């Protein structure tokens, strides 16, 4: 379990993380925020590279700074693209396995195992200097998982991966999450996060804006009406019926006809009312979608708020 208790981190006059309290348990959690939001600072505090200026950060009840007992249980994939370029990928992973207290034989065995898992076994004898961005990301993941840690902290791990690689990577994370691992993945790309998980921590300018399930977070944003698109062959009759509902804020006809765009408050009660109206008045509804029920909208709303 990772616990941040009113954790703040200052860099001189600049604040990196501002009074963040959060609890991260097993499963896949996304750490979302724009560049400079404090994601890497938070990960560095959890990995014990930085100390909080105020507040506390603990991993399994232990303070992580320079704590070997914590490092035995965490696998960290940093955002940086820096390596020992003269090493081969295989030797790089082996070297870090030896530093993780494994014997030569065990380090060799684990190196082969993780290289196979990340799909780099065939290409690992080349020097890292010649690797593509995607290969570098895979090698970084390999070094993070070679000691079978309980916690994975992955800083922007999907950068540079091709779509197939991304899919494989996300599948791998899901399988690790199913094993009960704690996985915290930072990203500034919203659709990536949507593909991975709905559990998230949302950071902006060092502050934790929101935490929890994406859909629950979305439901809390009452200041912003939800957008709903209704596809119907009778848009004018539907508009007449829906305009009378209390929670409809605005209503317009979509370009091309046969669809209505609405802004509503309290979408759950609206959906109940819509079902009743449709049944009572025999209103045909061919499609229903909520274009802003996605992470990008949530992020925009919260940041603007």
């Amino acid at each position, binding site marked *: 379990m990772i616990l941040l208790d009113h954790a703040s981190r200052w860099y001189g006059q600049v604040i990196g993380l501002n009074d963040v309290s959060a609890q991260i348990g097993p499963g896949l959690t996304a750490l979302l925020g724009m560049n400079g939001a404090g994601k890497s600072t938070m990960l560095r505090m959890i990995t014990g590279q930085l100390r909080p200026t105020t507040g506390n950060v603990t991993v399994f009840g232990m303070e992580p700074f320079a704590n070997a007992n914590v490092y035995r249980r965490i696998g960290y994939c940093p955002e940086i693209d820096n390596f020992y370029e003269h090493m081969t990928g295989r030797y790089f992973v082996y070297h870090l396995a*030896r530093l993780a207290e494994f014997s030569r034989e065990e380090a060799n065995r684990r190196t082969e195992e993780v290289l196979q898992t990340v799909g780099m076994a065939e290409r690992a004898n080349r020097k890292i200097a010649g690797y593509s961005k995607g290969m570098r990301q895979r090698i970084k993941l390999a070094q993070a998982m070679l000691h079978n840690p309980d916690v994975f902290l992955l800083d922007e791990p999907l950068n540079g991966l091709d779509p197939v690689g991304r899919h494989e990577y996300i599948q791998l994370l899901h399988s690790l999450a199913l094993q009960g691992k704690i996985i915290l993945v930072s990203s500034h790309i919203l659709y990536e996060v949507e593909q991975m998980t709905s559990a998230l921590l949302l950071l902006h300018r060092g502050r934790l804006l929101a935490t929890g399930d994406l859909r629950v977070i979305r439901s809390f944003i009452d200041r912003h009406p939800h957008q709903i698109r209704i596809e119907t062959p009778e848009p004018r009759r539907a508009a007449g019926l829906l305009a009378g509902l209390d929670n409809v804020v605005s209503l317009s006809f979509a370009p091309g006809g046969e669809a209505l765009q609405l802004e509503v408050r309290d979408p759950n009660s609206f959906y109940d009312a819509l079902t009743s109206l449709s049944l009572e008045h025999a209103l045909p509804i061919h499609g229903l979608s909520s274009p802003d029920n996605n992470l990008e909208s949530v992020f925009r709303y919260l940041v603007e708020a």
Partner: protein
Amino acid sequence: MESYLYASSLREFLRGRRLFPWLLLALAGMLLAFVWHYLDRLSSDVDRYTAVSQMLVFHVLALSSAIFSTAIVSQEVEQKTIVYLLTRPVTRWKLLLARYIASATVVSVLGILGAFLVSFGIYQGHPFTNTLLWRDVMSLIFGAFAYGALFLMVSLLINRAMIVCLLFAFGWETIVPKMPGEMYRLSIYSHILAIADHPSTQSNNPLVNLITGTFSANTITPAGAYITLFAVTVILTALSAAWFTHFEYVPREDAE
């Protein structure tokens, strides 16, 4: 674990690209020694060896130590690879100590190789007839560890430590041993020369001393020099280990 830390650090410092310039310099020393032998026929072998070894081995020791010692931590920070080392279950002081000893080992070996090749050149293929060689080996080892400890401490305290270390190697260590009075005692170089116990280059003519910059005789005893360099090494290494254990080493430009 400790032996792997040392061995892997040693392998890192012994990479061909790192060693090549120093090997070239050692060979240049041997070549110069051969030439010196023919150009300066009036001097004794000991004097010739003293002149060439002080110029190309003892003075260069500080330079090579500055370069290798700053690679222990600050180069890792600059290359941002420090993160891989600091997020492993390795006690920080052990990591630092292993890398420091490996770095000082390489600097010592390079210094000894340089002294051996100069001796080879001066003594025309019979380096072991040089009676100064064994004392030089000891002085180079003690010097390498003392310089290494000092530069390590500097590299932990300040960013861009290489510039400061090079200024120390070329400035302080060149000027201070030649300053009047007891100032030379503040230089590691003077202590290394005290252990080596080479014949004095000070002249009876004050004008010659002014020209060569030799103002005072080195009165440090070999025993005193051994104790001082050992103390400098132990104290600075312990301080560095404590510092490295308690402070953060995150690449600055990465800090959000």
